[in-house]
């Protein structure tokens, strides 16, 4: 039933259109979205880690709007890319790792946004060091996005997405 759905998606007119016509544009948008999403989160996370203390932490919240633009660019382009290889991707451990890393990254980003960037504590204005809990969240966020990138890249090179099977 699930396999039938995946195969139907993969053989749909939509997937064929993506593969034959839209692919270069879609994969390019996926890279631009990545640079926006992960790049701006890097800025936020390294500030939380204590770099560039002259930057008021609460002012970083405005960057979150742009982070979401990057995220939705990649959610939409990602679904389009998934449709081409639906069955292969669905059963790939690398694909599952990538999606898990993205889920963890999003949750950490939401926590950092709600607890750290919106904090009324003096550290938000750079007067004192950020608390250790905030730094742990920032490091975990950087690691989860790096994992998502690595898993996504490996996915393009290992046919079944499972390392060792080519």
């Amino acid at each position, binding site marked *: 039933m699930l396999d039938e759905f995946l195969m139907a998606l993969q053989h749909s007119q939509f997937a064929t259109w993506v593969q034959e016509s839209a692919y*270069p544009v879609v*994969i*390019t948008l996926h*890279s*631009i979205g*990545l*640079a*926006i999403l*992960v*790049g*701006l*989160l*890097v*800025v936020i996370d*390294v500030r939380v880690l204590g*770099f*560039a*203390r*002259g*930057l*008021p932490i*609460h*002012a*970083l919240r*405005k*960057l979150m709007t*742009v982070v979401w633009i990057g995220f939705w660019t990649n959610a939409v382009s990602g679904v389009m890319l998934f449709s081409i290889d639906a069955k292969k991707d669905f059963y790939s451990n690398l694909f599952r790792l990538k999606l898990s890393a993205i889920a963890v990254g999003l949750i950490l980003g939401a926590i950092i946004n709600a607890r750290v960037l919106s904090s009324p504590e003096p550290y938000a204005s750079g007067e004192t060091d950020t608390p250790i809990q905030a730094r742990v969240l920032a490091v975990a966020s950087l690691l989860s*996005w*790096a994992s998502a*990138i*690595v898993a*996504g*890249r*490996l996915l*393009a*090179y*290992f046919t079944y997405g499972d390392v060792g099977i*080519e």
Partner: protein
Amino acid sequence: MISEAHPILEWIKQTSIGEFVRSSTWAFPTLQSLHFIGMSMLIGIVGAIDLRVLGLARGLPIHPLHRLLPLAFIGFGINLVTGIMFFCHDPYVYAFNPSFRVKMLLILLAGLNALWFRLGVFIDVDKWGPGIEASRLAKVISALSLLIWIGVIIAGRFIAFTSSVH
């Protein structure tokens, strides 16, 4: 057309770097992962500065944002090294590829554009504290910067689609 050996490209291909990248199925995907991580660091930080200059997240003072530039240079360094390794992997794929040539030209333009910011408007950066609008010239340079870096991503992605060597 490009099937005959070219002395310089052949020498580059035979370097130990080229041999190393070709020797393992892991090398290329790993280098690609690093190239995307470096891209996120570089374009995320430069993009954040550009967005602030253009008026987004005005609560961020521009001068301390520049404190993040060393991290952007680390991203650039990662991509320079991994990029050279891709080139050595198979110089014939890149040397004659129009997208690769456009990408290199755009990176050069991005560098000159950043130099223009440094020499033309950086002297005023101290004045652009929280909530203060940057000058018209700074906005023009930042808008160009964003467009050029997006162009670099597009050209980089299109290397795979404009290759005459397989």
